[in-house]
């Protein structure tokens, strides 16, 4: 699993400034790290992952890669990103 505190290996990761998204289901200081999934027409940015448990979009200040660990605060899940046939998907870590 990648340690988010360590410098990334290989290609440098893109960095992202997170704006407020209107998501209001976690304390104010954490709200920009999440947004609502807008349905089939929606697409994930390189710094985003969809929580398989509660269907909220998790956002990071950096590009996400396989092996990264992120948290879904709205449903309190710990997730690891895995490469599934070229697609990045989030898997729950118990």
């Amino acid at each position, binding site marked *: 699993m990648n340690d988010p505190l360590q410098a990334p290996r290989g290609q440098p990761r893109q960095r992202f400034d997170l704006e407020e998204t209107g998501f209001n289901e*976690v304390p*104010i200081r954490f709200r920009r790290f999440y947004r609502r999934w807008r349905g089939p027409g929606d697409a994930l940015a390189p710094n985003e992952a969809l929580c398989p448990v509660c269907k909220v979009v998790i956002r990071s200040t950096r590009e996400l890669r396989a092996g990264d660990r992120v*948290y879904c*605060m*709205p449903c*309190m899940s710990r997730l690891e990103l895995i490469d599934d046939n070229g697609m990045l998907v989030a898997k729950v870590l118990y």
Partner: protein
Amino acid sequence: MANQDDPHLLGEADFRNTVHSFEFWFEAVEGYLHGRPYGVSPHVAEAELTDRQRDGLITTLCNYCVGETAALDASSGMIGFAPDRRAKIFLATQVVDEGRHLEILLHRLSQLGVADPDAEIAARANRNLLTFRDRLLDFVNASDWEASVFAQNVILECLEFTVFRHHSGTADPVTAELLRGIVSDERRHMGFGENDLGRRLIGAPHTHDRLHKIKRDLDGLVLNTFVETMGELGIPPSEQPDLAGDYLGAVARLGFRT
């Protein structure tokens, strides 16, 4: 320098201590409940309902009350045999959520002209849901933590999450807004159940077979309740939400196959 508000930089123990707390709960619910008496913004106006729509909505809300009362009774009972303090604190927040859900649903029934909600709920309650409630409370009365978390926080909460989320997209504006607030609470309840049980199954794999049997016993009740609720809402099968995507997805992640 690391952003101190970045949740993804928390260690696992810090993360769980943060989210399983009243501090977290207060600040989370403030975001979507502040300024919304009984879960609804004052500016949201009532839509005109036909008699048939109103009657169908009353039946649906009566059954939501059955589910929420079951969750209120179960989650409050589970505090007494929860395995650790974090779980007790989380369940205390869930009890408050369930009590609020019941209160706002009863308030909505009164707005729809129901004078005696207890009588109405008794007359309209879904038999499958009542049987499910009895099974859940049997687990709680037996202080069976794994079965209680499974039945309540995985099965019942997944069912409610799926149904309420879909219903909020088709309901009249007042009902829709109060349901959206409930769905926001259900995310925590459902996530707590799946994560607690997931950790527990890793430590005690023999529990898996016992829970699988419980799942097989309860599946029919859950699916029948779902189908009947969709019927009350007048939603044709082709437009029904994907219960499999939520409930069966959650149990599959926990290692249960149908």
